[in-house]
């Protein structure tokens, strides 16, 4: 369901194979999967959120957990292509002040790194 696709310029993209509701069960699986990923050589992790059609507080907590793990080791995490409804909820929670959000595709972001 989740993939880490390594690109050039020290970047990688996390993506979902299909549309998901990022709620309890899937967010627990995402956290577990993420812990197994090797991010040592990376500078930037782009989380492609296009396929997240719904998110709840447990899903948001899993994104915060990924953000913490990535940024604590000096890397940056960018949330790409958030759907409007998901983005509105993150803004309501003031998380736009924490996360980097970018409406461009991950590939477009990487080209500009």
């Amino acid at each position, binding site marked *: 369901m989740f993939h880490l696709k390594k690109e050039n310029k020290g970047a990688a993209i996390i993506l979902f194979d299909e549309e998901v509701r990022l709620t309890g069960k899937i967010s627990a699986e995402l956290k577990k999967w993420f812990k197994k990923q090797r991010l040592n050589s990376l500078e930037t992790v782009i989380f492609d959120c296009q396929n997240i059609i719904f998110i709840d507080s447990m899903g948001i907590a899993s994104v915060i957990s990924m953000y913490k793990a990535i940024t604590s080791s000096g890397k940056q995490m960018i949330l790409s292509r958030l759907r409007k409804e998901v983005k509105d909820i993150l803004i309501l929670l003031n998380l736009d002040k*924490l996360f980097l959000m970018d409406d461009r595709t991950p590939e477009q972001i990487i080209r500009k790194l």
Partner: protein
Amino acid sequence: MENMTNKESYRTTISSTLDAVDDVSAEIYSFIAKRSGNELAFRAGLLVIEICTNIVKYGYEKSPDEKIWVSIDKNNSSYTILIEDESKPFNLLEEYHNIDLDKIDKLERGGMGIFLIKSLSKDINYSYSEGKNKLTIIV
């Protein structure tokens, strides 16, 4: 999950599990999206999942044999959602949760649910009667 749907209302009884809560949230999303669009549907689906998750985790303490009753009625451009459960009396409106980005560890563990419930409701009322917590939300 047993449910009854007509053009203007939706009623269901679910067991107190997180999977059942996710399913009912998705059904309510779909019910409202068809009638009023994705934005309102998202808000209602999120309210239902946050409230029912709270009931499952803290009201019934993850006992899967308990029940939650969920109904939704369309009134012109808004919807009234009623969520009932038989756990111990708990009025979430008396809880205060602010979002503090300086305490990211706390956010990671939770605490956003009640803030979202209060922020996304147009109106919200709590009562306890006939052995049930009753939360009525306008969205």
